[in-house]
């Protein structure tokens, strides 16, 4: 099975976030980065499928040079080769241009399966995988909890709301967006880390893919980001103890949503 995994580099979870002067993004120079969490599970799932069915795992990442960090990590964990789509401001691309770039770069590769994370930890659109599937004309399924591949077909378990699941059968080639926590992530072994050095990373310059600028332009604009202001409000509930208790429960359920 020839599998591609799309991985995004996102600000590390323990970063201290500070805003840029114009308050339209976070200050990138203070950040350290890591692999987007659901993408790590997508990679793990792909590596397991390869171990079971043979084939190849190729990782693809869009972004500036620093995304080589997550590419190397994926190679160290066992991916066979990588495609780096060099694009400045890659982390701030909307889902559409990011998917568009990847579609152009990998169209001729003929992957049997493409796995992406369910969504990114930074922008959280949950659209890149779905758009990519559309652009490549592939069937897709989202929020995947389990993957079984047999006789050129897939059987996948999707997470629905309220503790419900759905099993779906689909043909290959296909695209899946993978949910976090569905498998146990492996460590990069030191041997793997050493071998990663000699694995191929194909650099594709975004601007050389022959796409028009307007096709890559964001469809949306961030006007302002801000740190939520913590406020403290005190509210007195009156009435008899019994009434007050009932009102309190209602408030905790409806307004505070902690019950």
């Amino acid at each position: 099975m020839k599998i591609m995994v799309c991985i995004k580099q996102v600000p590390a979870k323990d970063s201290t976030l500070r805003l840029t002067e114009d308050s339209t993004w976070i200050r990138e120079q203070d950040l350290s980065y890591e692999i987007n969490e659901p993408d790590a599970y997508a990679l793990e799932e792909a590596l397991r499928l390869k171990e079971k069915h043979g084939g190849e795992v190729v990782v693809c990442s869009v972004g500036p040079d620093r995304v080589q960090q997550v590419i190397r990590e994926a190679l160290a964990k066992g991916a066979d080769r990588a495609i780096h789509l060099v694009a400045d401001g890659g982390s701030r691309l909307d889902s559409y241009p990011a998917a568009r770039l990847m579609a152009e770069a990998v169209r001729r590769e003929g992957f049997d399966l493409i796995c992406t994370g369910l969504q990114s930890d930074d922008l959280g659109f949950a659209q890149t995988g779905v758009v990519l599937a559309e652009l490549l004309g592939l069937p897709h399924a989202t929020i995947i909890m389990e993957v079984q591949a047999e006789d050129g077909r897939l059987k996948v378990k999707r997470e629905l709301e309220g503790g419900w699941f759905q099993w779906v059968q689909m043909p290959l080639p296909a695209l899946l967006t993978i949910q976090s926590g569905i498998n146990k992530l492996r460590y990069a072994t030191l041997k793997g880390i050493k071998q990663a050095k000699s694995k191929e990373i194909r650099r594709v310059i975004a601007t050389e893919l022959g796409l028009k600028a307007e096709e890559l332009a964001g469809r949306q604009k961030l006007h302002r980001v801000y740190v939520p202001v913590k406020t403290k409000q005190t509210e007195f509930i009156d009435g008899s103890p019994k009434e007050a208790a009932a009102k309190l429960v209602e408030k905790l359920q409806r307004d505070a949503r902690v019950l």
Partner: protein
Amino acid sequence: MEIAFKTQIPGGGFLIEERLPEEVFTPEDFTEQHRLIAETAEQFMRNEVLPRWEQIERQEPGLTPRLLRQAGELGLLSIDIPERYGGTEMDKVSSTIVVERFAQYASFLASHGAHSVIGTLPIVFFGNEEQKKKYLPRLATGELIAAYCLSEAEAGSDALSIRTRAVLSPDGKHYLLNGEKMWITNAGFADLFIVFAKVDGEKFSCFIVEKGFPGVATGAEEKKLGIKGSSTRTVILEDARVPAENLLGEVGRGHVVAFNILNVGRFRLAAGCIGGAKQALQHAAGYANQRRAFGKTIAQFGLIQEKLAEMATRIYAGECMIYRTAGLIDPLLAEAIPDSPAYGEQVRKAIEEYAVECSIDKVYCSEILDYVADECVQIYGGYGYHQDYPAERAYRDARINRIFEGTSEINRLLITGMLLKRAASGRLGLRAAIEGLFQGSPASGRSTEARSMEERSTEERNTEAASLLGTEKHLVAAVKKTALLVAGVAYQKFADSLADQQEITAAISDIVMEVFAMESALLRAGKMAARSGVQSSPQPIPDSGPQTVDDKTAHVLAMTRLFLHSRMDWVEQRARTVLAGAITGDALRRQLATLQQVTRREAVDTIALRRQIAARIIQKGKYAAG
């Protein structure tokens, strides 16, 4: 920036040569590969070891060996084993990185080190082809766990006085070993013992002893103050039958094995101390941020900030030292050819070259850890004295590091001793440097050097102060001169009997250690500053730190300043001890005057510096320069 090593830097050379920032390795030079290794080691600790520390602390049977094997699967036991014997064969920077992460739990670090360093390296360095093929692949995976058996009840520091005997059987097929080894880390579950014994009671030698050989047994677990999760037992050899081919190295050359292994062990231990100290600082900073008293968090108090800043600053210096040392050893290691039979020898030589630096790192970093662990307890207050809080264990676990792998005393004696030996054999131009300092007439009044410093023009001083870290460069030059001054005076007085003057020798070592520490801190700061493009800044640096650099660089610059200025006070004190212990009367007065001129400096506001440093530690809740 590439690391540009000028050919080979001689061991101990830091004392007499000047280095440029780009010549030292620093954590800012980590490659992507190094970062990935750090990540693997960190995750392994976080997911597998730390959640089980209480079971390990109780020495739950089989747990540590299992975790070691798991580490082995990831390649974390075999960084120093060549690939052809199943190892991962990586550089010293990589092993330093791993050790720092493993130090988050000292007992596990001790087990890991006893196995993968002092237990395994004797075979890597001194084993013959058969021995390497037989044992290394299984040591790499952790299938076999090793221990290093040198100490005995009556022979610790004085290791050459061991009583364990080995006698060759009449048919020459095996040795019979008799004796008892004490304090052996990993003894409870080790499969392989590297045992030192004297052949015929005279010739110091080394043997590979399998647990299953007849006549090998271990005693009960020792009841220790700290690192309680590591196994420490006696190893009892009663007519233990060891095949003749398990002699490691040559008969009568066992001390070469013993001492060379300790060089690596010391370096590694230093890295462990810095990792442990970072962990303690993180606990302390986290606690200071949440503990409230008098309506504030205690982190808001000046005296707590002072502690946090001082802890961070010393850790920073130690970190600079260990990675600089790794960076010294690695280029020499890179020249060793793994497939050649001389590989072990080449690697050993590379490490022996920097034995002085390894000893310095060991003493200095173990004392940093003790200081940091002690202040950690203090910041926790009463809760620091309770077993349910991490400060208590950190405090107990820290203590061993000043004792094993050569006590602080023994290493202090070694540092000056080895430097003098290197000087005598012509490998280090110490004598010329000292003579240069005195310009041929040591006792005749003030040295030319001191005069020239005094006479430096105002203009010269101004430009120096204006350039980044100019004053601090001057301090490093001054501490080097101080070291040469006191070494020269002491040597002139005591010559070859200097070793008998232990207090003086140790005081000289103290100053030598500061040279290495202060210069390492300065060079790293210089490298970082250059990278953020401020070196050419013509403006004097405001006390609040340069405005143009990123937060981390500003933090490092502040720590470097604080460190250099405050250590200089200590250097002066130690120098006075040496001078007053070596000479008297007019000669003493003259040399004290020289010392005063060499070390003359302006006072800096260390209170402001510490507050500035603490602010970042408090904000990050941890060591914030790594």
